[in-house]
């Protein structure tokens, strides 16, 4: 293992296996990991049961138990924090992969209709099959997301250069499908009984309320299933940034990889939607914020995006839980309300910094 300067002048860590890790990326990942731990620590310390940070840490280390502190930490706050980190990471990962795949900075599971597909499927199940067991919902969401993914592949395949299609074509078709599915969700909310409409409305806004070990265990495997694809394709994402033709010239199986990326994005999005509902715009925000932290590509970009996504969800949820009080702001909305100003300010500062450097 040695530290060396690359042709681009950047310092990197070379491992014996030949793997090269840029030092800046390592520092960024370490920094964001510390920030994620800090945000999780604050989230664990805040709640109805009054616990100082040291009390929360003690309850965490003591493990599950019968006391109030153990209940607050192990039964309520820890599953919520872990769920927030997981779904934030999932949506951000999906967004980062789709942006690389389509070479469009606006690509996001919401914009492509994948979130809506999963959402419509789960909502339809709630309305037409209310007795369906909770454990079946991830499968239902996955079916909805996959249906949209398949539809996109078919639509783009017919009109845009064969299976897999071009990135821009997928994006345009995705927007069309998303718009149509949004209308379906509105119809489902309007024509379901008023009590169910209210529940669906809450869920559509995205909420971490249902976080529990059971729900976490139900959706985590679906997210985990996509990780091999993410790790496998992460390294290749750099070549997609150069364009389809250049990637093909570099020997990348573009169409097959695009299908795999879409499948991974569907898995990640379905897991998140089943757990908390759609998290709008997070898939756009998180990769861009990660890029502002460190302009990494490939796998480093994915890791940074996932960390930013998790931090945004847990941070926004904790802030609104603390500040808003008796009216719970759904997590999906709080992520947008708190995340978008951070997003705008960070992008602005980043643009100014780049102009100065230029």
């Amino acid at each position, binding site marked *: 293992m040695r530290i060396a300067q690359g042709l681009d002048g950047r310092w990197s860590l070379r491992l014996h296996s030949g793997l090269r890790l840029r030092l800046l990326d390592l520092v960024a990942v370490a920094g964001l990991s510390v920030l994620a731990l800090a945000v999780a620590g604050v989230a664990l310390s805040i*709640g*109805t*049961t009054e616990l100082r940070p040291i009390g929360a840490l003690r309850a965490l280390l003591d493990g599950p138990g019968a006391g*109030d502190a153990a*209940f*607050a930490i192990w*039964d*309520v706050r820890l599953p919520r924090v872990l769920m927030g980190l997981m779904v934030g990471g999932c949506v951000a990962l999906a967004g980062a992969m789709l942006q690389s795949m389509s070479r469009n900075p606006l690509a996001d599971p919401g914009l492509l209709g994948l979130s809506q597909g999963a959402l419509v499927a789960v909502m339809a199940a709630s309305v037409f099959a*209310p007795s369906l067991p*909770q454990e079946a919902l991830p499968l239902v969401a996955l079916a909805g997301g996959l249906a949209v993914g398949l539809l996109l592949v078919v639509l783009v395949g017919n009109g845009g250069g064969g299976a897999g299609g071009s990135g821009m074509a997928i994006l345009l078709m995705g927007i069309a499908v998303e718009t149509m599915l949004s209308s379906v969700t509105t119809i489902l909310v*309007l*024509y*379901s*009984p*008023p*009590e*169910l409409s209210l*529940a669906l409305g*809450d869920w559509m806004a995205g*909420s971490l*309320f*249902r976080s*529990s070990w*059971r729900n976490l265990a139900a959706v985590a495997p679906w997210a985990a299933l996509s990780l091999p694809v993410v790790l496998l394709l992460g390294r290749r994402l750099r070549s997609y940034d150069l364009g389809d033709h250049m990637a093909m010239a570099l020997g990348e199986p573009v169409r097959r990889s695009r299908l795999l990326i879409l499948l991974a994005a569907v898995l990640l999005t379905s897991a998140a939607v089943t757990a908390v509902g759609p998290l709008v715009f997070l898939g756009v925000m998180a990769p861009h914020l990660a890029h502002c932290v460190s302009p990494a590509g490939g796998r480093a970009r994915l890791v940074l995006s996932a960390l930013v996504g998790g931090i945004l969800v847990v941070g926004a949820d904790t802030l609104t*839980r603390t500040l*808003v*009080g*008796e*009216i*719970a702001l*759904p997590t999906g909305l709080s992520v947008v309300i708190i995340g978008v100003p951070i997003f705008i300010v960070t992008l602005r500062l980043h643009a100014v910094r780049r102009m100065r450097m230029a």
Partner: protein
Amino acid sequence: MRLTPKRLLPVIAALLMSSAAHAQTRDVVDDLGRTVAIPVNPERVIALHEPLLGLPLMELGVPVVGLYGRAEDGSTLMGVDFMDTVLGEDAKALGISGIGAVGNIDLEKVRALHPDLIVGTERHRDHAAMLSPIAPVYLQNSTADGVTGFSVEADLAAALGREPAFAAAKAAYEARVAEVRAKLPADPQGRTYLAVIVFDQVSVIRDISGAIQAVRDLGYAEAPLPEGTETGRGGFSAPISSEAFVRLDPDLLVVMNTFIGDAQGEAVIRQRLDALAPGWDRFMKPAKEGRILYLDSRRVSTPTIASARHMLDAVEAWAAR
């Protein structure tokens, strides 16, 4: 008086028996088929739905300590304070607390209330898994198909051993039904009613409210609905097109405005119906012939005997006019 062991023995025995009674549980099967060990005499109950469960429980004399949709001090977080409008009770004075923000039940707050029973509707299936570590959770069908009038309250009375309280309240109610029926200008037997509520569209009220229980107990039968009106999937109401609505001709038309907000009364209801079905009062015979009853939905919508009694009061006042 000296406290000798002989004198203390009966006191200790009584205390032990009392605490044993409180701790005693019995297994009941709830409406979702779950077997739940509930206390024989629950003393600290939390209801996850105020109008559908909290009010029937309070009417049965069950001690409710926590309600969804209320703040920590007991004030309502919803658009309407059903406890006040239906039962005339003040949650703050009764020491009833909320269990977290709307849309986000706070499990730590629930636990802090030390409930010995939590009652939810069939829609709280996933909440039950989260709340069960705190207290037994009994799920009661409240809007499902097959639920009618007082059936929720009757079921809860049977599950919680409050049948005598329910029977007494029902007997008094039936006497009141007979009293009001005697004051009606014509015998309702063989006559029809239609009840609608105005949300963002006109909706036919299904039979899960006290209002409908009362109007049926008076002898009215539901008017045939236009073909295609979907009322079989449960819920409080089912939407109906404005065009179909104005064609209906029940012997008694019951209309009310949404219970969200304070806008109630004849003028407001007429205004809202004018917006959704212009000219309805010129087309509909019940409107032209005065066979129409304007109601405050907040008072008559709950599945309680109290709501049914409010309905009887309204019918009595209408008959007197």
